[in-house]
Structures are given as structure tokens and as C-alpha cells.
């Protein structure tokens, strides 16, 4: 579904500030896989999503989506296959517009013609979908999105994302800005939608327990590289102490002492 070949991304290349954020990155994600991604702040996780979605162009390497080389495709063209949700609940909706207008814009991918599709039938369809969120939003379809709470907005964004039927979901710490109760609600919705719509999913999280509990495969990124990649049985039996142990082993191999491990470990354990 997604294939990244020798991907590299350097910011400010050719200047003294040059900073390589992603390096020799190779990854193949099969259709239907649910991959969780963890890694310290600045490891390059968001940059990785930007490269996949096309909001950033790689310095070298290739991006394949659905067996198609999309490296040269602009973001809006790749968007056909991708549903993307950001940490900021404000990023996924237009706050000055009503719920139903937002849903009308996002329920279908691609160019919009000057025809009126928001009719009674469409509203009934939206209402049915909103009822599943169990947040009472079905009664507030004519209200501006700005009147919703962060949790409600993120749940709505999630719903709108699946309605547009992408093949791949890219979730970037999408519950991090929510309070624990709302975060749990949105996480429940996420797993339900992923199952129901058979979405191939990449989910960045800062919560190690989530990374272990959800998904079929776990990646740990550090300094722009994948340092841990577990799936199947191994992933199923993974625990937080075991994961930290694996991380420590890798660090010891790389540096031969424990000093780096401590700082690395602290960054990781939010």
C-alpha cells in the first residue's frame, strides 16, 4: 500500500544549518496493516507523514502509494488516497462554517463543481453518521464548528475522514491535545473506524501503552531512522519494559555505554 525507498529529507541543505531529519528510510506497509509509531520528540515522525502526504518533497528517494510512484505528485493529488488527522483539533475543520457545510466539503475527495449537493437526503445521511459519534452532534448541524469542544471537533474530523473513503489513514498524535476522557472516546472511534473501513493505518503516538495495545505492527523511530520494527506474535507479546529493554540494547550496541540510553529513555517516556 505504501512503499518508501531510500527516503531522505534534509532541511536547509547546503547551509551551515543543514539538518538531516529523515535518512535512508525504507518501509513497506501492506494493505490492511495498522502500524503504530513511537519515538522521541524531533525523531522525524511528523516529517515522515509530510513526506508521505506530499506536503514536503524528499531530498532523495521515492514514495510509492498503491503501486504508483507518487514522488512528484503534489499533496492535493495524493490526498485522494490519504486521510490525515493532526494533533491540533482546529486543523481538520473550517471553524467559521457549520457542521453540515464542513461535512459536505469533506464527504467526497476531489474537485468540487458549482452544484448544490447539500439537500435533505444528504442531511439525513450526515445525521445518521453523527448519531454514531454519540455526542449529540446530530442536533447541532447548523451550528458553527467553532462552538464544538476539542474532543468533538476531533471526533468530527475523524468521521469526515472515513466518509471520504481514503485507503490510508495517517494519524499524528491525534488524541494528544485532548483531555483523558475525550482522548479515550476518540481512540475508541479510531479503532472502530479502522476496523469497519479496513483502513491501512499509520498512527503516531507518544503513549507507549497505546503503541503496544493498538495495531498489528510497531515502529520506533530515532533520529530519522527506524530502530525497532516488530509485528505478529512478537508485537502481540510486547510489554513496555520489554520495549524499553530492546531500545536499551540498540543504544548499547550503537554507543557502547549507557549514558545516551538514559537521555533517550527519558525523552521517550512522556
Amino acid at each position: 500500500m505504501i512503499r518508501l525507498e531510500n527516503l531522505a529529507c534534509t532541511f536547509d541543505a547546503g547551509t551551515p544549518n543543514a539538518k538531516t531529519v529523515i535518512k535512508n528510510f525504507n518501509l513497506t506497509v501492506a494493505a490492511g496493516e495498522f502500524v503504530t509509531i513511537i519515538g522521541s520528540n524531533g525523531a522525524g515522525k511528523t516529517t515522515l507523514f509530510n513526506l508521505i502526504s506530499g506536503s514536503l518533497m524528499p531530498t532523495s528517494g521515492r514514495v510509492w502509494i498503491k503501486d504508483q510512484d507518487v514522488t512528484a505528485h503534489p499533496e492535493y493529488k495524493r490526498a485522494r488516497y490519504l486521510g490525515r488527522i493532526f494533533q491540533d483539533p482546529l486543523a481538520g475543520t473550517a471553524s467559521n462554517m457549520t457542521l453540515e457545510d464542513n461535512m459536505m466539503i469533506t464527504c467526497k475527495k476531489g474537485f468540487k463543481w458549482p452544484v448544490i449537493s447539500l439537500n435533505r437526503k444528504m442531511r439525513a445521511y450526515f445525521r445518521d453518521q453523527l448519531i454514531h459519534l454519540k455526542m449529540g452532534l446530530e442536533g447541532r448541524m447548523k451550528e458553527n464548528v467553532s462552538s464544538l469542544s476539542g474532543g468533538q471537533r476531533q471526533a468530527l474530523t475523524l468521521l469526515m475522514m472515513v466518509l471520504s473513503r481514503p485507503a490510508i489513514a495517517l494519524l499524528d498524535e491525534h488524541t494528544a491535545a485532548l483531555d483523558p476522557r475525550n482522548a479515550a472516546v476518540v481512540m475508541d472511534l479510531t479503532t472502530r473506524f479502522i476496523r469497519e473501513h479496513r483502513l491501512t493505518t499509520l498512527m503516531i503516538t507518544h503513549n507507549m501503552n497505546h503503541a503496544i495495545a493498538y495495531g498489528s505492527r510497531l515502529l520506533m523511530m530515532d533520529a530519522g531512522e527506524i530502530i525497532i520494527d516488530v509485528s505478529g506474535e512478537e508485537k502481540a507479546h510486547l510489554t513496555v519494559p520489554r520495549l524499553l529493554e530492546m531500545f536499551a540494547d540498540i543504544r548499547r550496541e550503537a554507543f557502547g555505554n549507557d549514558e545516551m540510553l538514559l537521555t533517550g529513555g527519558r525523552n521517550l517516556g512522556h
Partner: protein
Amino acid sequence: MLEGIFVEGLIYAIMALGVFFTFRILDFPDLTVDGSFPLGAVIMATSLTAGQNPLAGLLLAFGGGVLAGFVTAAIHNRLKVPHLLAGILTMTMLYSVNIRILDNRANLPLLRVDTVLTHVAAWAENRIPVEWAALIFFILVVLIIKLALDLFFHTDMGLVFGALGNNEQMVRVQGVNPATLKLIGVGLSNGLVALSGAFAAQYQGFADVNLGQGIVVSGLASVMLGEFIIKSNRIGMLTLRVILGAILFKAIMYLGRFYGYYINMTPNDLKLIAGILIIASLAVTNYRRIRGKGGTAA
């Protein structure tokens, strides 16, 4: 004189609706307006003089404005030039283009040709006073344009326009190319502006390449005055208040022109007044916002 204010206000309202589209909906401050307004005027005057009927002239003027908007949007999209500069470039080039259209003249009187207004006057004869007929005609024209715009903003494309100025990222994630939308939006906006210029030329009885100087500022002032008098975010109200703002703006300018001499003002000071109006609107809006924030924090 009173109908005069309303008629001019209504004609300028068409231009202000265009300015509203770019500045408020697209978040694309477009200065092409100063060139596309006289463009509409000179296209109209030239086609009337060439014997075209007024409707064909209006359509040509609208089309010319759309093309001018396309040029600005294309410069911005393709060459990554900031919108302000892209607009200034087109506006400057249009000055020469407009003189070319007038066959190397700076103005063209419309004395002995049939304009929309002579048709209106002919219809009004023996029925109602000509001034009132013109007023009714322009109310109808502006109403049709307003309703068409309202309808447009309820279409799928119109809704995406609403989201674009607010959250461009969301539009891209939706698989829509923002560059295409800007091209369409800036094009439509300048089409309206040129249409307004075409009506202005017929109402004043001449087209002049300098007709557009500072037009964008009066359009913006109209938009802001409108925002002042009506608070709403329903699209029907948004377009209505632009129209009311344009009429109010014209009224203020009339007052300035007729009573300004008491305080030693000349017509040359009107542009200064327009600018001060905008600055005052901005200052009051700012003040309200700060006070609003302080209120909730306390």
C-alpha cells in the same frame, strides 16, 4: 440627488462584492481591481461605440475582468509571487491595455450611443420618472447578482471557497488544488469589478482609464462599513451588508463633496477620507476585540 447616491452606491456595490470575495472569502488581497474596473468601462464604451448592443458589451466587460483576474492568480500561483505584487503587476499592465482598447486615447465619451440607461429611459417614458427607473433597474441588477452569489456559495464549489480562506490545509487534504480555486475566485471577482466599471461608464456617460484609481480602497471601505452595521456570518447577510456598505460609503463621499467646503475640503481630499474611514474601522474593530478579550479574561 438622493437617487443618485443610491444608484452610484448600487453600481459600486457590484465592485465591492468582488472585493469582498477576494479579501474576505479567499483571503487574497487583490489589487487588480484598480485596473479591472476601468477595463470594464473601456470594453463597454468601445463595444457600444462599435455598435454592439449593451448586453453584449456587459458580457464582454465581465469576460475581460475574468481574464484580468486569471492573469493575477496565474502570476501568483505559477511564479510564487505574493498576491499584492501579482495584483499590482496586472493593474499596471492593464493601464496600458486600457489605453490600447480605447485606441490610444485616455477617455471615450458615450454621448450619442445607446446604453443600458437609454434603454431604461425609453421604457420609463410616460410611466415613471427616469431617475426612479434607473434606481429600480440597478436595484434589480444588484439583487440578481447578490442572489446568484448567495446561491453560488451554497454549491459544493462555493463551500470549498468558504473553507479555503479559513483552512487551506483542509482544502488540500480534500484533494482540491487551492491554486485552481484561487484562479476561479480571483477571476470571478474581477469579472464583477469589470461589470461594475461597465455600468459606471454608462451612468457617467464616458469611460476613462483613470476611473479605477483607488477603487480597491473604496471597495474595501464599503466592505468594512458593512461589517460595522450588521454582525452575522450567514452568507445572505454577508452579501447584503456589502451592498449597504457601498451605499453608505457613497453617501459619506457625497456629504464630503457637498458640505466639505465648509471645512475647506476639496474633492481631492476624498481619497484621504476613504483611507481614514478604513483606518478608523480597523481601529474600532481592534478596540472591540481587545475589550472583548479583556472582558472574558476578567
